[in-house]
């Protein structure tokens, strides 16, 4: 079971959390202006890197707040967790499927 460092509560076991998939995908400001391909890209396409991945997590059974995390998908090591709306100190490995 992962040990996840909630930026608001500190380290807590994985069962208190829920993962919300890839981070830093902002909802488009004007969806109506997007063509089908661009909308599908936003809606469905997600990175699946072997390596450092930026993810959204919510401390569901704790403070119920969303935050972001950099996790190495190979080792499951959490490199850092950081608040919504902020950027990590290093880059994730981006969209590679």
């Amino acid at each position, binding site marked *: 079971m992962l*040990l996840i460092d909630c930026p608001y509560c500190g380290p807590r*076991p994985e069962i208190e959390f829920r993962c919300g998939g890839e981070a830093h995908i902002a909802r488009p400001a004007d969806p*109506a202006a997007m063509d089908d391909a661009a*909308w599908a890209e936003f809606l469905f396409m997600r990175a699946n890197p072997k390596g450092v991945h930026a993810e959204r997590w*919510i401390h569901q059974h704790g403070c119920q707040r969303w935050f972001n995390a950099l996790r190495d998908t190979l080792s499951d090591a959490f490199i850092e967790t950081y608040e919504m709306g902020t950027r990590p100190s290093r880059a994730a490995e981006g969209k590679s499927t």
Partner: protein
Amino acid sequence: MTSQPYRLPQGGRIDRASPLSVSFNGRRLSGFAGDTMASILLAHGQVLVGRSFKYHRPRGLLSHGSDEPNALLSVDRGPGRIDPNNRATMIEALDGLAAHSQNHWPSLDFDLGVVNDALSSLFAAGFYYKTFMWPRAFWDRLYEPAIRAAAGLGVAPAAADPDRYGHRHAHCDVLIVGAGPAGLSAALAAATADKSVFLVDEGVEMGGALLHDVSATIDGGPAAAWLAETLTHLRARDNVVLLPRTTAFGSYNHNHVGLVERVADHLAQAPEGLARERVWQVRAGEVVLATGAHERPLVFADNDRPGIMLADSVRSFINRYAVAPGRRIVFATNGASAYAAAADAKAAGLDVTLVDIRDEATCVKEAAELRLAGCEVLTRHSVVGSKGRKRVSGLIVARFGDAKIGARRILDCDCVGLSGGWTPAVHLFSQSRGKLRFEPSIDAFVPDRAAQAVRAAGAARGTYDLAACLAEGFAAGAAAAGRVSDRGFSASATLTGFEPAGPLPTDDDPKRLKAFVDFQNDVTAKDIKLALREGFESVEHVKRYTTTGMATDQGKTSNMNALGLIARTMEKPIPEVGTTTFRPPYAPVTFGALVGPARDVLFDPVRKTPIHDWAAEHGATFENVALWRRAWYFPKAGEDERAAVARECKAARDAVGLFDATTLGKIEVVGRDAAEFMNRIYTNAWLKLEPGRCRYGLMLKEDGYILDDGVVARLAADRFHVTTTTGGAARVLNHMEDYLQTEWPQLEVFLTSITEQWAVIAVQGPKARDVIRPLIEGVDLDKEAFPHMAVRLCRFLDAPCRLFRVSFTGELGYEINVPADFGRSAWEAVYAQGQAFGITPYGTQAMHVLRAERGFIIVGQETDGTMTPDDVGLAGMIAKAKPDFVGKRSLARPDLVAPGRKQLVGLLTDDPRLTLDEGAQVVADPATPIPAPMLGHVTSSYWSANCDRSIALAVVADGRNLVGRKLHATTPAGFAPVTVSAPVFFDPKGERVHG
């Protein structure tokens, strides 16, 4: 001592002052405290202890520890306490303990299943796949049941387990697994650094190999003295937790380690309420693995006869348990460690011969010493077979040269000690995703790069010398505690080193030999070679095809022999063959321990409304909806479900019904931007909804599919009372929180779940207003003043009340929201007031029928996560003027606007008495050959007393264009003709709700 003919007159760690007796297959056997079931069996000369898995060959003990593959016993502690597949070596002797052997019929001594041994050519690797190919229908009914019955390992108990099992969570700085020399010295180092230390060991006593290495010395004194002193020191420290009888069975992410502690089975009188076993979930800062090594058997023909065991196990039984596994013991080895066992056996007064595969030159030193002790030592000898049936009576050996096998010689014996080298127990290291490295000098995989804060020490990383184990353990313990600290230990030299051997040289036809590699799954060298010949070249495929390493012992004794054989046969180095993946559990764990307290009432929380007890007192039957128990229907004497539901449905339309709607999810959306937030989350418009009014809201996921629905009341400009489906409450709150926190953090909105705070009493029917009028204060209930879809804050008797005029039945209706503590009293007040009007409580089944009569959907029943608003006829719910809301853009996705989507319709059976099954498939023409194209399926189907016929809702491709058309629905009796209709069956204009 005559009752224990193989008990040695002195020595051992048993307590001869504490005699006890156990039973084996009903026979009483005596022993001492400190014995195991295995040592007691051997003390009585009971060498035959089980039958093998496939061939039902007679089997005895192979080892003395948790790697034992053969001696699986069923322990009977009374009804519900029958525990199969216990390794005899791990069962602590306890006065009165009853154990039975397994996998034989009619008896252990005479097992008819042994016919499989004679027919063994039929049972080669993959024989199930090859033999039971056809007829296909025979597989389910004949082959598989017969195979399973024949091949079982033990029998599961039939009664419920009456024992308690505990779960505990713990944190520590340093977790040390294994309390042999390396683990103990690691604990010393970490404890001295003032770290919190857990030291766990699966044995009854801590000490590992020191418990049976009686000749070893540490720091100038006997190893046993050092052990006692070290344990005393550790016990005295309050930063150290010692857990004997505790197996670390799994290593998971971030140093989360699963332990199972055997708490009560060894106690003659367990205190009331004590758990039988306890699972510990430990989160360790650092882990030190001092898990030791497993000895390998040698692979030769008939190497599985009872009495043939591992050399170090022979040593353990003699030294630790004071039991002679035999009087005439032959050791067969390819390495040095067996010489220590042979010397100890000789010192115990037993007749000892040693056969070494290696050249005289390689083993000259240890051979000379053993000969000096008076034992015959044969070097450069192979073992080509064994004699005996239920107990080994001779070992067949022959000198061998480059390509020649010399004359055979039979060494009479009643016990054989095998040593084929050692395999470090890297299971937990590998489970923690550490990388292994093949070390040719010891012919084994050893820990290499760790993936977590895990380090291995001692035999677990291939270090076999005692002084080196102690030093390595100390350094590892210190490093785990964040210190650099080396300490030297002086200890007696350890005999180490071996020459890897495959199947031993022989000139017999290998096709006719049974040389076992995996004892528990009856896999022979021949099976593995056959698998390779048939093209199974990956080690993972060989494992699955032959089942080598797949039994409950997980191949602890067999894996390296199998790998070596694969490598030799394929002429590849072992690192290229690789090793199979190690997965938890390291050793079997009972289901009871894993389940722990999570059973019966603690299995899952149950949610009950404040009105639950009233419903139970009034005879309600209940159904589970998510975690809720909901009143299903209220049968009167003599009524079945259909009659009760019909009466309840009629009452709601003819007079007045009473329904507990408390389980509806409720969320309060409050704040300056509450209306804007609602506008973005729901498909319809909210900005202009006046306070005091309600609106039905529909919510989509971003992909355009329906997520949830419910009535929303605007209580004030900045306050909405949202209702959701019963099962969707948490999902909707999560959905709202996600958008609020991550997409629109600038909105000032607060979301609060209020599901549990308000009891909801639905009063539905033409008489509803008359019933509630005397109970409500502060509202003009006249229909003009308080119309359908309005809300008022008022008082219900003494309670504050949010009174909704809403209807899920299509009748004049109210939903009375009172604080949960007032729920039951308010319900009883309505019920009393309604008596004059024939008020009838109804349950969820009538609620479903009533809403279906009016064609109201239930999200999750009419929808399945791929339905759009238009699919269910709710296109009108989409606010065209709104530029955006969650899911809006997706409604224009090509697939969502394509023709031919399934649409909600009604289905009327030609036979009005026939009620379709929900889930029934709809086809155009029953004559179409199978597989016929499915047009859709029935989503809701009921008997409607109000319509006096059956009604059904269905989703059918292009359904709205098919109204009036004849289709067919599947029933258990064949196809039934149905006519497509609009999805409304009662009050089609919807007038009654305004009454």
